[in-house]
């Protein structure tokens, strides 16, 4: 299958700080990739480069045949292909759940309103909160908000979904409902890059797990090899800590 994302010797600095060091990564269509690593290792920075929320100084990223560059038009096209789910949901608090979902279809994709509403309600159905459509974000629980955020990310019919620690701001009892939605998505063949420390999720759906440290990809492997035969010492240490 063809590569939908190609990242070649990507380097990124924040001022003098070298945040990403020579990253190479190819992602196939429909592949599920889990990225883990200690905090500050550059996981967020990496996936934020893929939809150009962060600029980078060296190397290249090709998404679905288009090379990322400063071209504003191209970036906006890219962003309807690549959606992002944030750790803190970032729903629009002044808009109802339904309006959160129809915003991009109506304004970016110029869909007729009724069509956008119908599709948004379907998406809400899919994440199990169709009945909350008229409420505002602050009236929902954290788990529900994150499911709305996933539905909003899906509203542009993206080919790729990026998740940046989607469950780490949630109370423990709400994590499962969000992961369930993500598992469903994975089964439907979505290309996904998930920064997460939910190793159960990784074992269940990941095609590949990537371990990052200090701005580098240290090791990557399919799940059983990743957990059972970690090569580098750093990964062994990390797994010990995280799996207890």
């Amino acid at each position, binding site marked *: 299958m063809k590569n939908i994302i190609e990242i070649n010797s990507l380097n990124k600095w924040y001022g003098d700080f070298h945040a990403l060091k020579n990253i190479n990564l190819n992602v196939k269509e429909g592949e599920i990739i889990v990225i883990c690593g200690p905090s500050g290792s550059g996981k967020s920075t990496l996936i934020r480069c893929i*939809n150009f*929320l962060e600029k980078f100084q060296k190397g290249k990223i090709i998404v679905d045949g288009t090379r990322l560059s400063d071209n*504003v038009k191209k970036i*906006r*096209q890219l*962003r*309807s292909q690549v*959606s*992002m789910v*944030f750790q*803190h949901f*970032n*729903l*629009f*608090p*002044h808009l109802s759940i339904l309006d959160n979902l129809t*915003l*991009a279809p109506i*304004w*970016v994709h110029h869909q007729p309103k009724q069509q956008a509403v119908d599709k948004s309600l379907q998406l809400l159905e899919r994440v199990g909160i169709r009945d909350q459509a008229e409420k*505002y*974000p*602050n009236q929902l629980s954290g788990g529900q908000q994150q499911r709305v955020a996933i539905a*909003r*990310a899906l*509203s*542009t019919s993206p080919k790729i979904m990026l998740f940046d620690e989607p469950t780490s701001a949630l109370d423990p009892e709400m994590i499962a409902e969000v992961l369930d939605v993500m598992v469903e998505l994975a089964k439907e063949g979505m290309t996904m890059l998930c920064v997460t420390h939910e190793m159960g999720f990784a074992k269940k759906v990941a095609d590949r797990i990537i371990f990052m440290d200090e701005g580098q990809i240290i090791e990557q492997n399919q799940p059983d090899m990743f957990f059972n035969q970690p090569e580098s010492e750093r990964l062994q240490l990390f797994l010990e800590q995280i799996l207890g």
Partner: protein
Amino acid sequence: MSVFKAEIQQKPPIASVGIFAWLRANLFSSLFSGVLTVSVAYLLYLSLPPLANWALFNADFVTSSNTECTRQGACWAYVIEKIDLFIYGFYPAESYWRVQLAFALALFIIAFMRLARGRQWRFKAIILAFLMYPFVAFVLLYGGFGLEVIETHQWGGLTLTIVVAAVGIIASFPLGILLALGRQSKMKIIRLFSVLYIEFIRGVPLITILFMASVILPLFFTEEMNVDKLLRALIGITLFQAAYIAEVIRGGLQAVPTGQFEAADAIGLNFIQKMSLVILPQALKISIPNIVGSFIALFKDTTLVLIVGLFDVLAMVGLSSSDENWLGRETEGYVFVALILWIILYSMSKYSKNLERRFSTEHKI
């Protein structure tokens, strides 16, 4: 619903209600507040009765001139006779209905806004009303389209005060938003211009701006174009107010979390969409109290237009009390004008509290 009915109704213990408990909690909670309460009560005792005597019990209400105001108190007959001057200035009496209609329309729109929340078509109606109203009001007040033209030098009194304040408030708002965005712009020249403009204006008193507007603006126009005196003052006030609104809105913009900017970017909105659909609604909501505070300050400042030869409601006091029938009745005039201005400003501040509460219960951040 019925679940809650099972709760046992309990009355609060007797000591925490009733007038004594209230007095204790609010007026005598400590020695200091007790002393304060007693001294304030004493001051009121000293000042209220004479004030009431002057304003009500010893006042004259129906006389035809100063000399007939023989009682010791206020001569409200003067205010009553000059009331048209206070409200309409030198506007021709047969056209008062035009002023009344313009203000009635404005009140109608404000009342309508309350009813319209959440309704899609009404929302559009409000936007339309907002865009149309300035033109309608202008035609009503000034003339044209078959209405007799009433030049702006005939405008005055409360009408003029409200026109100046309203134009200043409405016109400065979009300008202020642009300046606030300009100050945060990535483009250096735009940012520099916005910063210079805002800091310059905020460093200069309104009086100076008004003088400059009435003296310097005409230099840019030819003799025949002779820009209207009122228009010059309006331009000056708008330019002045925009700088303050810009700073208030900038504060609101900074209070919007970065995650909101990122989410708006991530779903592919362009800059204008991101600002108008996502960021500004939140920033403005945060800024409501400060925006209204700034408008209230502007409303008070409008009394300065006297300096450039416009006669607002305050200026009417001096003018009407120099009438030989009513010489020396400034006190009544000033008290009356103070009362009017207070009513208007207090309503504005109440209205803003109301807006805040409505927004915050409808959907919090």
